[in-house]
């Protein structure tokens, strides 16, 4: 048994120059870990979470890159390596793009979020990727985020100046028996455009509790993809605030659950200005005894006229012991809006499968083709080098699970 609190306080004492850490820690202590009585955590296996299984320590040395991380990096203009939450290396350079490391000041913004407070108390630094006004970056920026130690609290800000344009691929790996709590913000100035794809492929023993928030200026465009295969418990909260007219957000979350995994997705699209547009597509499959929950809130402020918000969630059940919940919520305080949501939970279509079999395709291959087909539209919008790997990983995971259909 380790002592999380002791190691956390020692870490904070070692960084006493940063006054907000202790504040954040105290806020976390006052809040305590959430419980499943709390509606927003009701599906999380929090009973199994014992912080004393983890310690907080100095970041580890950077490990050798995995083959995939290497491959991903090769096609990037800039490769940012983050190990145990700290910036360890920036390779390459791009005109108009800078990477900085600074003390976190975010704690007051997340007053009621225990995990975010934990991140603010224990994150080594805020890592900021800044793209200057009117900079159009052709090559993607790759962030390789590895957890080697018992815990990691990455804090990342990607900020785009006016009319800037960039694509970012973030890859999370490692995390054997660890607690990984990333906190991310995307600040998009007017007319800027960010495509960000996050691929979470942590070890199956990891606890992953992530939160991201986008702040969109006038006519800004955030296209966000979140793909999750890893972690024992995968919590992914992705919020967007539409601060000015014409802002657009497309969010696609994709997951594949196996074993006893829990995938817990939360979204909050907060339309505070008119003519803003959100499209949300969540698609995932659960196999074995895994489960998933998707809870999405679309909130439209009074006066946010001509807002268009759509939410779609499709879940594929690959085993009778797997379970998926879909909970769309709408809070609309303006009449002149377009808002829609749709969701489905079900097994593979028996007749489609029969059709493939009647062409001579084996049942196993028919199911494999249909599941790949289910994920296809999610992969089609990813940067190609990432799509290839995700497809391969999905295929590999599907090769291990037993698909049980009616």
């Amino acid at each position, binding site marked *: 048994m380790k002592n999380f609190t002791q190691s956390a306080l020692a870490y904070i004492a070692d960084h006493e120059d940063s006054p907000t850490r202790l504040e954040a820690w105290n806020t976390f202590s006052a809040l305590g870990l959430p419980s499943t009585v709390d509606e927003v955590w009701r599906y999380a296996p929090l009973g199994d979470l014992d912080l004393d299984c983890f310690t907080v320590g100095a970041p580890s040395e950077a490990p050798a890159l995995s083959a995939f991380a290497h491959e991903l990096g090769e096609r990037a203009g800039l490769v940012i390596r983050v190990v145990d939450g700290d910036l360890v290396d920036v390779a390459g350079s791009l005109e108009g793009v800078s990477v900085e490391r600074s003390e976190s000041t975010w704690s007051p913004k997340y007053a009621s979020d225990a995990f975010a407070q934990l991140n603010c108390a224990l994150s080594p630094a805020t890592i900021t990727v800044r793209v200057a006004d009117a900079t159009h970056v052709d090559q993607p920026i790759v962030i390789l985020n590895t957890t080697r130690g018992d815990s990691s609290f990455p804090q990342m800000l990607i900020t785009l100046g006016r009319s800037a344009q960039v694509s970012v691929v973030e890859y999370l790996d490692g995390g054997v028996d660890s607690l990984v709590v990333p906190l991310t913000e995307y600040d998009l100035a007017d007319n800027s455009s960010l495509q960000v794809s996050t691929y979470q492929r942590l070890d199956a023993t990891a606890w992953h509790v992530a939160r991201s928030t986008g702040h969109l200026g006038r006519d800004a465009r955030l296209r966000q993809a979140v793909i999750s295969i890893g972690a024992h418990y995968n919590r992914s909260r992705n919020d967007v605030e539409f601060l000015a007219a014409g802002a657009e957000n497309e969010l696609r979350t994709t997951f594949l659950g196996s074993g006893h995994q829990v995938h817990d997705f939360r979204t909050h699209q907060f339309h505070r200005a008119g003519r803003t547009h959100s499209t949300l597509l969540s698609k995932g499959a659960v196999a074995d005894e895994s489960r998933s929950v998707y809870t999405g809130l679309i909130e439209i402020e009074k006066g946010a006229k001509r807002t268009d918000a759509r939410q779609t969630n499709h879940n594929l059940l690959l085993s009778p012991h797997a379970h998926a919940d879909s909970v769309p919520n709408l809070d609309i305080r303006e009449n002149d809006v377009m808002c829609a949501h749709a969701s489905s939970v079900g097994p593979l279509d028996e007749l*489609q499968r*029969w059709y493939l079999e*009647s*062409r*001579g395709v084996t049942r196993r291959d028919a199911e494999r*083709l249909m599941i790949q*087909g289910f994920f*296809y*539209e999610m992969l089609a919008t990813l940067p190609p080098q990432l799509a290839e790997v995700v497809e391969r990983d999905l295929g590999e995971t599907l090769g291990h699970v037993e698909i049980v259909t009616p």
Partner: protein
Amino acid sequence: MSTLTIQGLRVEVAGKEVLKGFDLSMASGEVHVIMGPNGSGKSTLAHALSGHPGYRVLEGSVVIDGVELLDLSPTERTRHGLFLALQHPMEVPGVRPVDLLVAAGAEREGLLERMRSEARRVELRPEVLERFVNVDLSGGERKRAEMVQLAVLQPKFAMLDEIDSGLDVDALGAVARRLQEATTEWNCGVLAITHFRRLLQELTPTMIHVVSEGRVVATGGPELAEILEKDGYEPFRIVQK
């Protein structure tokens, strides 16, 4: 030379017996046509033979070259040589025709080119085959796409369920010619289910079987189609006891 023999086939759909002892026997290279009024059991035959989950075989036997198909999975039935082209081919979103055909056992080498050339033979725009299986295809395009699958997979026997319904005259001609050519190209046996005689203008039947009330009530040469054209199905109707 292969043979397909159906004997005493009884099939139930939603608790109702639709095929009540169906018999038919044919050889490679032959064209057999099954005609009959609505509800006589024609489509049930096609679905039951290919193992559709909604159809329950009560009794009977379907044998290709000594192998009992009814003991096999839908996949194995097809791999033993019986291919079904559907009246309403299903959409399978996210699955590309080329991947379907590879999974069905087609040789990958040169496959795309073969698909394109087969598409042209049935007057299907080859680009259509780049879409997901049957997704956003018109009724006519779907049936022509089934012909492409058939030609690539080259089964011993092709069973066609109302392949002519919803096709315009040109499309019908193209499909019928392709089937006729298949009978010599790889000695394919064709079992075509149809309401209408017009399919037979380009596809020469070896035998015509008239079906009523779930069994074959008359078998004959092409002249049978002419009788049906003139007198309809009424003379062949079985009076229920």
